[in-house]
Every structure is written in C-alpha cells, then in structure tokens.
C-alpha cells in the first residue's frame, strides 16, 4: 500500500470518536482499526451479527464460528453481543449506527455513492452495503482518489448504478479529505506534498477550496 494510502487510513481513524458504534466496510476501512488507540471506547459492529468486535485472530487462534462480515476471524471483547441478521440491520436502519466507513467506485458531488455494481463486469449483489450507506448516521468513504487508469472517482454525477443517493458525508482519499456539503464539495485537508491544484485536477467535480491554509495528512 502506498504511503499516502497508509496516511489516509490513519487520518480516517481520527474521525472515530469515543463512544461511537462503528461499522467498517471490507477493504481499506477494515484497516482503520489498527490505528485506534488500544484503550479507546469504541463499539465495532459487523452486519453478520456482532457488536463489540475485538482484534482479528490468526488461523491458529481462530474460532470457526466467529467471523466478521468480510470473513476475517475476529475475537470477542468483554461486552460483545451476538444477534441475528434482522437485529443486526435493525441496529443499522434504526439509527444506532453512528458511523460507517465504506469503499467506493464513484462518489457524486451531491453525496451519491456507487460501490456495488459495474454492469457487465461485476455484479455480485449489494450485500449489506445499501443499508449501511443509506442509514448510518454518518457515512464516510475511503478510496483512492482516481481509478487504476487515473480517471476521477469523485465526479458530478455517478455513471454506475447507485448504492444510495446523497448519503456520503465525507470522502477520504490518498490525496485529500473532502466534505460533502449543501453547497458542494469542500476540500478540508490535503495529502503531504500535493497542491490544491493537483487535487482539483484529479477530481471530476468542482471543489470549494477555503482561503485558509489547509491541514496536511
């Protein structure tokens, strides 16, 4: 993983506040947990039916019946609870999930998210992603700023099938931290060594760039 992506993951971890219940999506978001303070008060949820997830386990340590939704073997904490899939998504849709961090194929400037289907190429089903995107109290996305061909993932409108409309609050990329606001995308932080001009050039939608010096990560 590039250094910038590692710093993105570490930066994203700082958005998790004590006392939150958080769902970390498969892929980059899962790595956020490694950057949380050891004694932090945070309750991790996984949609296959756990709250209070502890650290991941090696195959030797693993309990065959205890995985997260991404299939990783995890451990319980004192206070872990197990429940069925209906209760698990009741927690998500009912407003008890404070934050979810998700991957993305495309994000539109109004907060639309596409991350589940590329017609003709990738259609495995949405899993729990739609409900996480539509119903978590706060939705942040972690993604490379551009795709493998260098094309922007942040754009005026998504061209792929949507996961949920106007759901994204904040975007973490290897280039920037961007907030989705009522007036548009606001650039909040920039990766070390990049200019705001470079970030704008790699973005398929207009960025509102505040006058003050932006923090680096």
């Amino acid at each position, binding site marked *: 993983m590039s250094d910038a992506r590692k710093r993105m993951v570490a930066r994203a971890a700082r958005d998790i506040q*004590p*006392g939150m*219940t958080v769902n970390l999506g498969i892929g980059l978001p899962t790595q956020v*947990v490694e950057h*949380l303070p*050891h*004694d*932090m*008060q*945070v*309750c*991790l*949820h996984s949609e296959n039916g756990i*709250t*209070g*997830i*502890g*650290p991941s386990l090696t195959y030797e340590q693993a309990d065959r019946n205890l995985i997260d939704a991404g299939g990783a073997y995890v451990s*319980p*904490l*004192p*206070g*872990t*609870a*197990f*429940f069925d899939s*209906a*209760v698990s*998504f*009741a*927690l*998500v*849709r*009912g*407003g*008890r*999930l404070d934050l979810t961090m998700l991957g993305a194929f495309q994000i539109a400037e109004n907060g639309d998210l596409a991350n589940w289907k590329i017609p003709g190429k990738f259609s495995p089903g949405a899993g729990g992603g739609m409900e996480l995107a539509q*119903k978590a109290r706060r939705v942040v996305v972690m993604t490379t700023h551009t795709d493998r061909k260098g094309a922007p993932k942040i754009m005026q409108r998504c061209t792929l099938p949507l996961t949920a409309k106007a759901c994204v609050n904040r975007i973490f990329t290897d280039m920037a931290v961007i907030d989705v606001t009522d007036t548009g995308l606001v650039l909040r932080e920039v990766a070390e060594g990049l200019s705001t001009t470079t970030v704008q050039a790699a973005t398929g939608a207009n960025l509102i760039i505040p006058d003050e010096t932006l923090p680096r990560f």
Partner: protein
Amino acid sequence: MKLSDKTTAISDAIDKISDGASIMVGGFGIPGTPFCLIDELVRQGPKNLTIIKNDANETDMGIDHLLKNGQVTRLITTHIGLNARAIAMMNEGVITVEFCAQGILAERIRAGGAGLAGILTDIGIDTELGDGKQQITVNGSPQIVETALKADFALIHADQADTFGNLAYVATARNFNPLMAMAASTVIAETEALVPMGQLAPDTIHTPGPFVDHVVELAELTKEYAVVRR
C-alpha cells in the same frame, strides 16, 4: 478497544423526560414492568405524556400512578381490563386510548426499532381495529398498513445488565422490553443486577448494548415487583 460505561443515576436518567414526551414502557402484567423508573417519573412529574404499553397495569400499580397523577394524555395499548381507572378516564375523555391487536402492537414497535415505515397484515381486517386504516393489495389480498411506532423514550426492566447496556431478561418479564429497547430515541433500562463486563455470555444477551443509552442499577425492588395474591 473497550466499551463505554452508561450507568446513570435514576434521577438523572428520568430528568431527560420533558412535558409532551412519548414513552414506551415494558411489561406484560407485572413481569417486566419498570416500576422504579415509573415511580421516579411520577416524582419528577412531566405532563402530557403519551404512554405506549401493552396494558395499563392494575389500579394503584405501575403506570396507574401516572394516570392518577394526571400526567398522561394518550395511551397506545392492547388491553386495559385490569385497570378500572384507565377505563373510566377513557370513557370520560380524560385520556385518549388507541387500541392495537397485541401482536400488531409488538410488530409496530419492532418496525420502529428496525427502521421500517410499517408492516402489512390482514389482522383486524373487517373489524373495528381495521377501520380507517390505509389498505393495499399484496399478491391479490387486501392488507392493512400498520405504521411503525417510535417514541422519545423507552423505560425497560432488565434482570441483568452490564455497564455498556447489554441486557438480559428473565422468564415472561421479557415480553415487550427487547422490542421497545430498539424503538426509542433514548432508552433507559433499570436492572435488578449490574454485572461486570463480560459476565453476560455474548450468545445469551437479549438486547445488545448499542441500543441502550442509560443503565440504572436498582438498589432494591419495591413491593410492586412481588408475587400478588388475588
């Protein structure tokens, strides 16, 4: 990582309830009714409350204290036959009572907790309970739209809780408690025993902690919790 501590003094927890609040109250008969939380609600005295509860307890017990104290304007319930005062207040128009079929009240609360807008059922169709409710056709059959119920607060009685708010109920004291514990903006649980974190087996927790906002440890049980000779 560790889980947060939600233990709260009973007066601080109930102090959050203001005039006009809607409040779900657990219990079916005596078991599972949070009598101590109700007593504190009577002591603090907020008014114009909407109470959502399976029953109205019995005269001079549980939510009857709220009725007697003039704190309730509306009751959403299934059966109030054991509380003559509740029936009299309903007949005199002092309180408004909305009756639901018992399992439909459970489902409406559960739907609220599950972030659904409602459920579709044929229960009560062609009866008074179906009158005036939206109906749609699903697979050729008429179905009543029963809307989800949410509330500002839920008052829950648990047998055991840890400080994070994981709850376990006992026997028929479970009833509406786990459903209501999902369906309110602020969930206040009284518990007979506050146990150390990790003592509740993760497979046997009935209400996971993230649904619960405040855990109130009961110092002692009032006599209303006891076996009643009839």
